[in-house]
């Protein structure tokens, strides 16, 4: 059983932001980087399937620069076997279809039995890379999976829809699934595992022709505040007293 997991290193903003000179992205100095939360669930699911099968390999793939290897090492420390990273400058801030094109080349070369992605990346919130990747690999797919069972040539999955309603679907394998949080409990990597992960192989590649981008960011900006919230000042005691007043007034 060979499973490819797409892992993205995501950036999170604190309470300050500056933009790059061309205003097309946030200045990386203002971002804290980590592995995308959804991808930890995808990695965990892959590890469980590999271990249940008794043999096989979990390969993590990333479209990202050298720094993105931190996220890959995280997945490797959880227990993935090796990584492949693909990068060229064209991929910086790229749209999800362009990213999928880069990932597809790598995934195809692995001939996996299963490809897992996260539902979305927390910084771009496209929720699109997985389905685009499936198309480029000409594989069946399902999005927002909260339960997964493999048997024979099919995967039986729960797709969680709006309101929590679950569609039970049968998907031919190999396939691409986008994994939702809560499907499992991602393991913590032990210090020892983190050390060992440093030794695991990460192959680096350049993508071929990525084609025309599907979209381009013109500019990023801080959203206008609108009316905004009335801020309650003072210490915690004053804040609590004001909250109590507001509640009494509004629930009366």
């Amino acid at each position, binding site marked *: 059983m060979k499973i490819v997991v797409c892992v993205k290193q995501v*950036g*999170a*903003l*604190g*309470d*300050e*932001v500056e933009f790059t000179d061309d205003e097309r992205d*946030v200045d990386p100095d203002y*971002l804290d980087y980590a592995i995308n939360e959804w991808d930890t669930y995808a990695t965990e699911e892959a590890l469980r399937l590999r271990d249940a099968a008794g043999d096989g390999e979990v390969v993590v793939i990333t479209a990202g620069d050298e720094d993105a290897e931190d996220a890959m090492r995280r997945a490797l420390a959880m227990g993935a076997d090796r990584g492949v990273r693909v990068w060229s400058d064209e991929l910086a801030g790229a*749209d*999800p*279809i362009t990213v999928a094109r880069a990932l597809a080349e790598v995934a195809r070369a692995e001939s996996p039995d299963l490809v897992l992605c996260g539902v979305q990346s927390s*910084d771009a*919130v496209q*929720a699109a890379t997985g*389905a*685009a990747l499936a*198309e480029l690999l000409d594989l*069946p*797919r*399902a*999005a*927002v999976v909260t339960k997964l069972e493999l048997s024979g040539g099919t995967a039986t999955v*729960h797709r969680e*829809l*709006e*309101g*929590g*309603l679950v*569609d*039970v*679907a*049968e*998907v031919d394998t190999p396939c691409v699934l986008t994994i939702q*949080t*809560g499907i499992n409990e991602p393991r913590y990597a032990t210090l020892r595992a983190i050390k060992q992960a440093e030794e695991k192989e990460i192959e680096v590649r350049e993508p071929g022709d990525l084609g*025309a981008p*599907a*979209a*381009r960011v013109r*500019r*990023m*900006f*801080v*959203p206008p505040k609108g009316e*905004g*919230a009335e*801020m*309650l000042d003072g210490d*915690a005691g004053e*804040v*609590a*007293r*004001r*909250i*109590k007043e*507001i*509640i009494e007034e*509004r*629930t009366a």
Partner: protein
Amino acid sequence: MSVLVVAEHIRGELRPVTLELVSAAKELGGPVAVAVIARDPAALVDAVNVDGVDEIVCVPVEQEEFENDVYQHAVETLVAERSPRLILLGFTVNSMGYAPALAAKLGLGFASDVFAVRDDGGELVAERAFYGAKVNGEVDFPGHEQVLLLLRATAWPPAEGAGSATVSEASVGAAASRARHKDWVEVVAGDVDITSADFLLSVGRGIGDKENLEQFQELAEAMGATLSVSRPLVDAGWMPGARQVGQSGKTVKPKVYLALGISGAVQHLAGMKTSGTIIAVNTDPEAAIFNVAHYGAVADLFEVAEELEKLY
């Protein structure tokens, strides 16, 4: 500009987002065609025939419920036959399963979770959020004659008023469906119905540990509030799903929604942003929850909770 809207329906019911897509399409001028892909599309025609729709395209297929290969094949066929400038779908779980695939296959311009669109001298410009909704971005589609956008639910008002659309039929043939609907699993009812509460005390990942939950259960009781939570607390198994507010949980509209340690992700806001009065406590002054809150405090939720305990 010519717009093709794809209607979304589940178990025979039109999803409200469909009429919001019509509003967005109308704003851009139209003509607006709405595709109804279903075993019996005629049954949904009345629900879709609202003011602003010029044509309803019935697309009969074998499958009663959504299957991504079936939808992809149908929309692909319609796009080839009709060459719309813009294809609009809801940013929904179903769309996530096929829209990006279609865009990749046909080389369309593409963006998801779009909450504003404008025609900038013939060029489409879409607005969407990045980085935990702390930043917005304008996205355009250079070189693309055709663009597919997934629009955020509730970003446009639903189109209303009786329409006078012409109704046509398109036959698209059968698609090999490689991911097939088998069954539904209903949402389990919980011990409480958070949708009927007047006052919700809602806690998020900011509470840190499972051990801290009890404190907020007690606080809610003392304050006369019902306790609700954001998704991560349900994912972690700390709370049953019946207490979850948001897109994949419950949509609530209490008189007061007091949010402690909730960042305000779009899927959370989807479930509570129409609450009467929203009060948010968060240590991050830039948290997106403050954009929808009526009152906010940049404060440590444990300190505020401790003070509230003294008052109740």
